[in-house]
């Protein structure tokens, strides 16, 4: 729990170093701009500004870098919403409803929803972190392969909510995606399906593949249009409507809470980060929502769910980093490097001896999230002007940036080539009504599924009863099945109600018809 005297000291650090607050806005802007470019990862953005932070004092450096991190957490949702290009796997679920809203001309609102969900849950994540930074870190270390396998399965449940016309095609697409995700060297050191190409040893790069698959269906089809949004009146950019979206977020406290919890716990697990949390949060929200049929067609709850999980994951991975010195992903690895450049080694001893500093860092992140509200509104106001540029200018530029972005992932032309190959595949799949999103989910989760399944098998020696020794995994499966069962039950009730309603309508109609027959009869 929170240590009050350390907390007071932390406030002291915060206010005695007000000068370092000045780094918040530049940091946020750098993070927002970089992460809005597809393919430029948070890690890369932070690696670029890292040398600059060397010349600052420790607290300023950390404020600056964590601001970049905070800004980058939201920036990815801008291209996801406006152009259906997720800049990183963590904004994939944002595209589902975000882009659908944009197509309807509700891009202002969609960005507003995303921004508020992102900041509120960012703040929530850090507040929770303030209370439980140490126990959370210990729990995280205990999360083993069986638990992670359960989480991966949970992520795959998203497929159920993709609702394709043909279930068989959806399943084939998902299985194909999973297999694509397992290409290369697996965790036990076996190499499959590389055709002797060295780049494939690490597997198919997910970001180029994802952009390719999604771009084929949407981006290339924009060629025939004059503007991204067809209706002329819908192309306005309005702060009022952005604020309306921001405000609207507050109407979904349940969605925010669920997304945050999923995001924090999964985001804290080293090596997994936020790329799966958003999928689970989206699927859970859609499945439990009363209006689940409108998800994917521009339901703001879809945007809120996805973004809340992404934003709160940041707090989770900061907890792992501060308390254990373990990087949850590339971004926290850079943060650790920055700590070390100032001769501070994060980890168990740091959190024991320097608790006020840890609290001050967390508190500052909360301040950053609040500042992000203002900076973010300005940023999305500028960024959404893209819908007012004619496609003949914007489309070539976006395609060039996306191509260079895929090159930026590994620095090989393999990236752009992957983009193109998957664009063709994506086009063919969309043409014959295969859910492209199922392939993406497969690619994103395939490796994790195999790795964790394999480790569970190795750990248990092949004995399935081993799961009984892992209460955590049992709990995850229990929550998952309970959620599934409750939805099924709810659906049944809903169907029943609908059936009754229909029957009542039918009766009314019949009565109407009968009366009509009467009247005609009496007339005749």
């Amino acid at each position, binding site marked *: 729990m929170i240590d009050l005297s350390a907390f007071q000291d932390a406030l002291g650090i915060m206010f005695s170093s007000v000068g370092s607050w000045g780094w918040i806005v530049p940091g946020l*802007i*750098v993070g927002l*701009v*970089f992460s809005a*470019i597809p393919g430029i990862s948070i*890690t*890369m953005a932070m*690696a*670029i*500004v*890292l*040398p600059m932070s060397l010349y600052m004092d420790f607290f300023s450096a950390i404020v600056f870098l964590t601001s970049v991190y905070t800004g980058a957490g939201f920036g990815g949702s801008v291209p996801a919403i406006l152009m259906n290009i997720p800049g990183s796997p963590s904004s994939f679920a944002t595209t589902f409803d975000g882009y659908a809203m944009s197509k309807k001309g509700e891009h202002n609102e969609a960005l507003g929803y995303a921004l508020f969900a992102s900041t509120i849950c960012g703040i929530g994540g850090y507040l929770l972190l303030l209370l439980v930074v140490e126990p959370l870190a210990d729990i995280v*270390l*205990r*999360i*083993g*392969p069986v638990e992670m396998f359960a989480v991966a399965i949970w992520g795959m449940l998203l497929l159920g909510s993709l609702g394709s016309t043909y279930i068989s095609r959806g399943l084939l697409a998902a299985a194909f995606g999973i297999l694509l995700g397992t290409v290369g060297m697996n*965790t*036990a*050191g076996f190499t499959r399906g590389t055709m002797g190409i*060295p*780049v494939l*040893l*690490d597997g198919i790069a997910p970001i180029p593949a994802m952009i390719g698959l999604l771009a084929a269906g949407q981006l290339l089809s924009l060629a025939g249009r004059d503007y991204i949004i067809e209706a002329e009146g819908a192309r306005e950019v309005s702060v009022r409507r952005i604020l309306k979206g921001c405000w609207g977020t507050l109407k979904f406290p349940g969605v925010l809470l669920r997304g945050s919890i999923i995001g924090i716990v999964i985001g804290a697990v*080293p*090596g997994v980060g936020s790329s799966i949390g958003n999928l689970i949060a989206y699927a859970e929200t859609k499945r439990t929502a009363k209006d689940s049929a409108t998800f994917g067609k521009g339901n703001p709850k879809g945007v809120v769910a996805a973004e809340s999980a992404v934003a709160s994951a940041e707090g989770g991975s900061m907890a792992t980093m501060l308390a*254990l*010195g*373990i*990087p949850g992903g*590339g971004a926290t*690895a*850079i943060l*650790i*490097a920055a700590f*070390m*450049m100032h*001769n501070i*080694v994060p*980890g*168990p*001893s740091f959190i024991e001896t320097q608790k006020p500093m840890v609290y001050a860092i967390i508190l500052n992140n909360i301040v950053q999230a609040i500042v992000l509200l203002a900076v973010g509104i300005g*940023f999305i106001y*500028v*960024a959404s*002007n*893209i819908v*007012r*540029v*004619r496609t003949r*200018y914007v489309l070539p530029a976006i395609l060039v940036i996306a191509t260079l972005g895929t090159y930026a992932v*590994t*620095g*090989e032309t393999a990236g752009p080539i992957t983009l193109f190959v998957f664009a063709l595949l994506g086009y063919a799949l969309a043409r014959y009504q295969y859910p492209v999103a199922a392939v993406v989910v497969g690619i994103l989760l395939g490796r994790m599924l195999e*790795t964790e399944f*394999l*480790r569970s098998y*190795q*750990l248990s*020696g092949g004995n399935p009863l081993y799961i009984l020794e892992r209460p955590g995994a049992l709990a995850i499966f229990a929550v998952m099945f309970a959620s599934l069962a409750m939805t099924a039950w709810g659906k049944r009730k809903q169907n029943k109600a609908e059936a009754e309603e229909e029957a009542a309508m039918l009766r009314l109609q019949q009565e109407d018809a009968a009366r009509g027959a009467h009247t005609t009869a009496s007339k005749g």
Partner: protein
Amino acid sequence: MTDFTRRDAFKITAGGLAVAGGLVAMPSIVRAANYPSRPINVIVPFATGGYNDRLSRAFMPYLEKEIGQPMVIVNKPGAGTQLGNSYALNQPADGYSILCTSAAPYIPLTVLLQNAPYKVEDFAMLNLPSRDYTLAATSAGSEIKTFAEVIEKLKADPGSLSIGVQPASADYANMILAFQAAEIDPTKLRIVTYDGGGPARNATAGAQVDVGFVGGEGFLPLKSKIRPLAIFAGEKVDWFPEAPLVSESGLKTDFVEGSQRGWAVTTKLRNEQPEIYKFLVGAVERASKNPKAIETLKLQELATTWYGPEASDKAYLDNAAKMAKYVDLLK
């Protein structure tokens, strides 16, 4: 109308790029000599944030001062350093690209196990300051206290303990060698494979596996969460003095040294441009002996020890020979 918005849309990009551009351009000290006359690329065949990346970034300012040119770090991760190594070999042998890498055991491993299209001898070491060793460890709360206990338990029942290790690594070879020496059948063990040292360490510290075999240096920040059981080194390791040597457990086993990290160039450069090679050796030597560099890097737990090219090359080639000897254990 269009003009205005177009400019607006670009303003964000351009603004961001300008910031970034300003950051990257660093003041350069221009020297009259022919070499080096332009910035030098440092190829790091790992992603940002790893040991080599941190080492290169921390050491760079001191090396820049000796070389007199700015340096640019080029991260080329992938395929167990094979992509970065191939990339380095494809650059012209003009001294404008040098490597900062975990030369051993990664270069021999890519050659032995991945049929990489180069030879171990294609790389020439400048200096390999960081020497890591395999550490067998368990979580701090574990009931296991010594490595002898591990051996005893596994002898009685090879499935009684789970073991976390990275396949096709020096750690894996050491684990198999130790268990063979103890006459334990490795095929009956419950071996859990991890695709890197980091995940294997986390699994060890979190008691997901009972014993982990993984490079010891990375454990330093997690020291309080683990109990070292045996370190596979010939003598006490100065950065982890409390770790008992594997020989102290009474087990007589051969072992492979762990990662040897540091600075290297291509052999082609050494042979074709001996002047440039000598210049680079001198620069690395002076930078490594710079007291300020030593102090700064020590605080970040990064190594600066000067072994020199001959000793580094010997250590690297010895490691490669040993890897080749035990390659069958790794497959």
